[in-house]
């Protein structure tokens, strides 16, 4: 019983982290059909920038904000200079964003070196809630709350505001959206930077529990992709459910079948896609 509850909690908190990372990626996919291999780099660089803020004695909240804003700007730059023109060319997008991912990986190595770091978290978030024999680290509860807050805000923006309606229209049919006078290019740029912003938030938050280290970018990237494909591109609900599924499958897979853990993660994904090629909540 304790095993199941603890593992479920770990899975959910990892899923929450994945949601922060993949929520924006899903919108980017849904809106622009851009395969963004740089998304993992945004996560890693966000963590590094946040770390630098903490080294300068900045508070944790400022680390998250500065990390996210810097990365959002980098994302806007990359999108404007290159990706904007590669609409509909999957191969071009994959290779260009992969090129950036390699460059960012190397720059990270040049600037921050090859050592792994852990971002020190505030006193308030340390320790654990105790419930009988079980411990729930406060920091993991905090991640779940952050992800919940982001999900609610995103949902409100998408469903209850004019900008959100424009975004949904762009996801549904970019050509028609352009036809009724929506500035699809501007909306796309905003969504791309929002995705980069959230990935960096995930990077700083993850820095406090799995750490920031070279290679984290390509380690987390497939997870983000899998969340998006399983949930369906461009669907917020899909991203939430996909993140939870991946988080739980990953945790239980590693705990129950350590030898086959990645198989237990990726094989069900492939099975879902075999039945529904556009993901659980995606539309073609």
């Amino acid at each position, binding site marked *: 019983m304790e095993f199941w509850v603890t593992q479920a909690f770990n899975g959910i908190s990892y899923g929450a982290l994945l949601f922060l990372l993949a929520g924006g990626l899903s919108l980017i996919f849904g809106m622009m059909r851009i*395969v963004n291999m740089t998304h993992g780099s945004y996560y890693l660089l966000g963590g590094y920038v946040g770390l630098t803020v903490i080294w300068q004695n900045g508070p944790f909240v400022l680390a998250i904000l500065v990390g996210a804003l810097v990365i959002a700007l980098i994302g806007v730059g990359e999108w404007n200079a290159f990706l904007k023109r590669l609409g509909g060319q999957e191969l071009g997008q994959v290779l260009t964003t992969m090129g950036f991912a390699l460059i960012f990986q*190397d*720059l990270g190595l040049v600037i921050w070196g090859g050592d792994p770091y852990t971002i020190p978290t505030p006193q308030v978030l340390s320790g654990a809630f105790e419930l009988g024999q079980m411990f729930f680290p406060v920091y993991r509860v905090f991640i779940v709350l952050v992800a919940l807050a982001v999900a609610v805000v995103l949902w409100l923006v998408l469903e209850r505001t004019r900008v959100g309606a424009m975004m949904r229209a762009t996801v549904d049919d970019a050509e028609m959206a352009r036809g009724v006078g929506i500035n699809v290019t501007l909306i796309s740029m905003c969504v791309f930077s929002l995705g980069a912003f959230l990935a960096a938030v995930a990077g700083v938050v993850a820095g406090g529990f799995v750490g920031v280290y070279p290679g984290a970018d390509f380690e987390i990237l497939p997870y983000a992709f899998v969340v998006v494909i399983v949930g369906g591109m461009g669907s917020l609900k899909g991203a939430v459910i996909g993140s939870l599924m991946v988080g739980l499958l990953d945790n239980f897979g590693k705990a129950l079948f350590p*030898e*086959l853990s*990645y198989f237990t993660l*990726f094989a069900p994904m492939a099975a879902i*896609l*075999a039945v529904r090629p556009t993901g659980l909540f995606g539309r073609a």
Partner: protein
Amino acid sequence: MRETLFQGYQGVVLGVVGLLLFVAPPFLSSFLLTLLTQSLIYAILAMSLDIILGYTGLASLGHAAYLGLGAYSVGILSTKYGAGFWVALAAGVLLAVVVAAIFGLVALRATGVYFLMITLALGMVVWGLGHRWVSMTQGDNGISAIPRPKLPLPWSFAESIPFYYLALAGFLLAFFILRVIVRSPFGQTLVGIRESESRMRTLGYHVWLHKYIGFLIAGGIGGFAGVLWAYYNGFVSPADLQLATSVEILLMVALGGRGTLFGPALGASIIVLLKNLVSVYTHRWLLILGAVYIGTIVYAPEGIVGALRQWTQRASPAPLRAET
């Protein structure tokens, strides 16, 4: 006329390159010879991807899986069961084809971005097994001390020059098989599907079956490259089949020129040489490789062969109208 003009050049170029590859070994340092051997093996892999990417128009993000399947077959069979070259070769290619047959059923339900993503997930399944199925694959440590193949021939493949010729033979075999395939009616149908799937369907072609067979061929030849790779390296680890490798194969094909067969082989050798030579001089070779990725898309979206083809067309006299 324009096409035949270029094909005339192409025949000469292929002949010269083939001859150079054949006589080169005695003139090369051992370092360059190993790089050339590596290039040949990666060229096989890139050409196999070209069947589905260049000719059929399906970008796969999981092609490293077939390299891994071939390589792990050799690794496991030859170190655990002492299997010989032909058994390991047959097993490696067969396993790659069988896995491609299963993956194809799943992946070919989608196109475009969805195809990319599904092949990525499938590639990760194979990587995950290599990474975690420790009792079979030794996990991240990889399988080492794979012996070079022993064949009833007067020379030993443990030496680098004979092994180079083995790789060259493998490369030529793969090249001619693929060349026959792409020039056959079947290959032309694949090109037709790339240009317009709906039109081919209307014309009565079984589009799915053609794609599926193309997918199997790509997988099988990819597995063949993996077999040679394991023998060449004497070592196989999950790093050989990670996502970054799959993207690198895509780059090789795009850099050389999609749908030209010769182009991907050229792209593969450029990337192999670049990675190994640049890393001798600087630690910052990832920056350079990243720039090559971006530069390829910005400056040569049709690849080197595509750019050359355009150039020769522009240089040749304007065609008569009647030809079109």
